[in-house]
């Protein structure tokens, strides 16, 4: 009762306040940048590397070799991924070449302890990238829940070169997020977890992944 009053009181105060008609928003800042495919790739790479992420150039035909190489150099004992995505299905097909395959196909409550303790790395697909800031876009879903890109110490993400947009504004416009409708959660990730809370000195892997590895195809 009291709380409902709070709502009405606040809104009433705001509605009976003095009116001011502000100017409409100026659109003199372009949503997109005049970059070709190569420029976008270049910036995407440069920004991610500056943020301490690893970027591997591959193709749709040979990316599994790149992934295998990443797994062996990092000595990963296991890899969490979803076989239900097209990319995950490809890994599964050749699973004998990869570290132990992990997959959780039930609600988090049953796999929380296992996720927090014992997963070396997770692989996810992405919803594209942003060149200007070196960002990957994730739309977590039932196959690739949001925590798999957060809890394991290494996050390996696959980005399609044709899905790299120049800016964030460009991405949400071109992919038409408003019309598609926003999913439960969207994540923009621009490097491994970091903090500068002590003396403004950078340190990596504070709570999220210590390493972010991008495979470009």
């Amino acid at each position, binding site marked *: 009762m009291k709380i409902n009053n709070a709502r009405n009181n606040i809104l009433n105060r705001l509605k009976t306040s003095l009116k001011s008609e502000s100017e409409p928003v*100026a659109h003199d800042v372009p*949503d997109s940048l005049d970059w070709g495919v190569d420029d976008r790739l270049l910036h995407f790479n440069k920004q991610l590397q500056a943020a301490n992420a690893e970027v591997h150039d591959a193709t749709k035909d040979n990316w599994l070799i790149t992934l295998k190489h990443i797994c062996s150099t990092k000595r990963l004992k296991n890899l969490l991924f979803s076989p239900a995505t097209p990319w995950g299905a490809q890994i599964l097909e050749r699973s004998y070449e990869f570290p132990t395959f992990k997959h959780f196909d039930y609600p988090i409550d049953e796999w929380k302890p296992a996720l927090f303790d014992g997963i070396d790395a997770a692989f996810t697909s992405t919803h594209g990238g942003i060149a200007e800031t070196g960002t990957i876009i994730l739309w977590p879903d039932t196959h690739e829940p949001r925590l798999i890109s957060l809890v394991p110490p290494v996050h390996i993400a696959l980005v399609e070169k044709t899905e790299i947009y120049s800016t964030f504004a460009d991405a949400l416009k071109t992919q038409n997020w408003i019309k598609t409708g926003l999913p439960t959660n969207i994540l923009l990730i621009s490097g491994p977890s970091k903090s500068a809370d002590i003396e403004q000195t950078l340190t990596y892997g504070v*709570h999220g992944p210590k390493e972010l590895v991008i495979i470009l195809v």
Partner: protein
Amino acid sequence: MTTEFRKHIQHALTQREVQANTKNVVNRLRNHRRAALSDQADWQRLRRQSTAIRTHAVDKLPQLLELLEDKLTQNGIRVHWAETTEQANQIVLTIMQQHNASFVIKGKSMVSEEMGLNHYLKAHGIECLESDLGELIIQLANEQPSHIIVPALHKNRKQIARLFHTYFPATPYTEDINALAQSARHFLRHKFATAPVGLTGVNFMVAETGTLCLVENEGNGRMCSSVPPVHIAVSGIEKVVEHLSDVPPLLRMLTRSATGQSITTYFNMISSPRKPDEKDGPLEVHLVLLDNGRSRIYNDLELRDTLNCIRCGACMNHCPIYKHIGGHAYQTVIPGPIGTILEPQKSGLNLYGELTQVSTLCGACREVCPVSIPIPKIINRLRWEYIRQSACNIPGAGSGKKKTEAIVWKIWAWSCVHPVVYNRIGRTITNMRSLIGRILKKISAWTAVRSTPKLTKTTLHERLKALKIEDK
């Protein structure tokens, strides 16, 4: 008389270590910002755009809040309204109690600081644990944040090393920043996994889609909002924007102004609780919308600009006073120039009226503010409201009025329009210049640390006359 407030400032000025730490960090933040916004023309355009977005959103605040509530509710997020911090605390407590939760893990939230939430919940037997590295440091030290972006900027690695060694005795003493961060990671991981409730702030709320946006680097905000079965977000009512397309420009300005980053590591957009076919994420998401004086500020078109703030902290990084006295001397939740205008309006000039004097009006804050808040102009306005009885609705208006001061100004104003008297006073002061010099040297806080200005033998009017310059 030295007031409590001035005593705090004097004390702060003796804290050499805090001063050194503060200067070190704000200088770095300033350099990073400058590097990120070096193109002046670009910066002006971006600022115009961000200012327009925020001004427009604030002007449409009641409509946008209703739209936001509608959309969030449709999306399954529960919206709660609080007029006061007490109500907001009660709402959080009730949610906690409904889940029999005795522990909440927190992401960084200045609104929760404004609510005094940790303290309130503790009094009700609920433990709050901060998970942002900076917030954790100050929680362990039992202090308040001294900066809105870098809460523990007043502490150096040695102090933090001692603190961590006391609280995590199992980990060996180290001054290595990576090792310190890793002990926090280690300590908090289990807490994230077991917390029944996570609580975070909000950076932007998008009305047209019903989306809560969180900006962070560490991943603790993601942890708090995705691992526990219940997520509570707390926000001031002013954080709403109308369109999804408003978010990219604001995000760009926020991170560049705050730390010079082109984007933070994580930008987290939450539009609903876990859906039936999804495997993780909270089953319940709550948003607590806090007023606490904001709707009152809203009613004054000049003061309304205060609500445009996106909490980037640039104004404090560029404030000559903040740099010297540090955040704690302000004795407010939000320090620095934005705190100077916001806190007296929220809590009353009777409490924080003196704060309006903590400014040289140099205008640096206005120069760097990404949403062009005219901070010096608002400070001047508040100084005026502090000493006059007016119809304005800021609590405590007129509480700083002093009779003697008022009389002195009246005499001064009167003498200004009576040239004979004015010139007489001028001559008398000039005659007594050596005595006045000695008195000034003894009593003034200004002359205690600076050379006393020397009064000349002739007044300005006398000199003009001697130079045969017309003196009207």
